[in-house]
C-alpha cells in the first residue's frame, strides 16, 4: 500500500540556522504534496504545497523541494526561529481530497 514517511522523528537546531525536514513517499502516481505545521495544542496548519510538475517552490522563509526520481521531498526553513518549533507533517494528496500523512517530525529550536 501507499505510505508517506519522514526520515527523522525529531530534529533540534540552533536559532538562526537553517532546518531541513525530509519525507519519502512510495506511490509514484502521487501528484500533489503538502507540508503542515502543528504547534502544541493546535491543529495542523498548511505551510506550503507543490505539484509533481515542479521541483521547487518557495514561500516566506520556507522552500519545498521535490525529487520524483527518488520519491523524496523536503522542507527547508531558513533562519529558524523559536516560533518554528512544532511538529511538521508531509502529506500526499491524490484523489477525492484524501491525504495520506507522514508520521511527523518534531522540530525544536534552541535559543
Amino acid at each position, binding site marked *: 500500500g501507499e505510505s508517506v514517511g519522514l526520515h527523522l522523528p525529531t530534529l533540534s537546531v540552533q536559532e538562526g540556522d537553517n532546518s531541513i525536514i525530509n519525507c519519502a513517499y512510495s506511490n509514484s502516481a502521487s501528484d500533489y504534496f503538502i507540508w503542515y505545521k*502543528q504547534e502544541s495544542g493546535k*491543529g495542523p496548519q498548511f505551510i506550503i504545497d507543490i505539484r509533481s510538475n515542479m521541483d521547487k517552490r518557495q514561500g516566506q522563509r520556507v522552500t519545498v523541494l521535490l525529487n520524483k526520481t527518488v520519491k523524496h521531498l523536503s522542507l527547508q526553513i531558513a533562519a529558524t526561529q523559536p516560533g518554528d518549533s512544532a511538529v511538521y507533517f508531509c502529506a500526499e494528496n491524490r484523489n477525492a*481530497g484524501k491525504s495520506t500523512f507522514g508520521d*511527523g517530525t518534531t522540530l525544536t529550536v534552541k535559543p
Partner: protein
Amino acid sequence: DTAVSQTPKYLVTQMGNDKSIKCEQNLGHDTMYWYKQDSKKFLKIMFSYNNKELIINETVPNRFSPKSPDKAHLNLHINSLELGDSAVYFCASTGFEAQYFGPGTRLLVL
C-alpha cells in the same frame, strides 16, 4: 472568524459512556473529515464526507458514527467509549487540495 471549529475542546468521560463531538466550517468547502491523532502524533483518517455523503470510512469500529446534517457540519458520535479511544480528534475541511483543520477535541476515557 474561526474557519473550522470543534466543540468541546476537552472531553473527559468514563468507559462505556456515549459522547458526541461537533464540527462546523464556514469556508464553503464541500468535503469534511475526521482524524484521530494518537499520543505519538500519528494522524489517522477516520471518515470523509463530500456534500453530506460518506466517501471514506477507514475501517473504524462501528461504535463511531459520523453524521453530516449539511455540508458545513460533520459531527462524530461515539458509543460505548473504550480506554483506547483516548486521543485528540481533529475535524478538517477542504475545497480542492490543502486541508484546514479545527483546533482538536482532547478526549480522555477513564
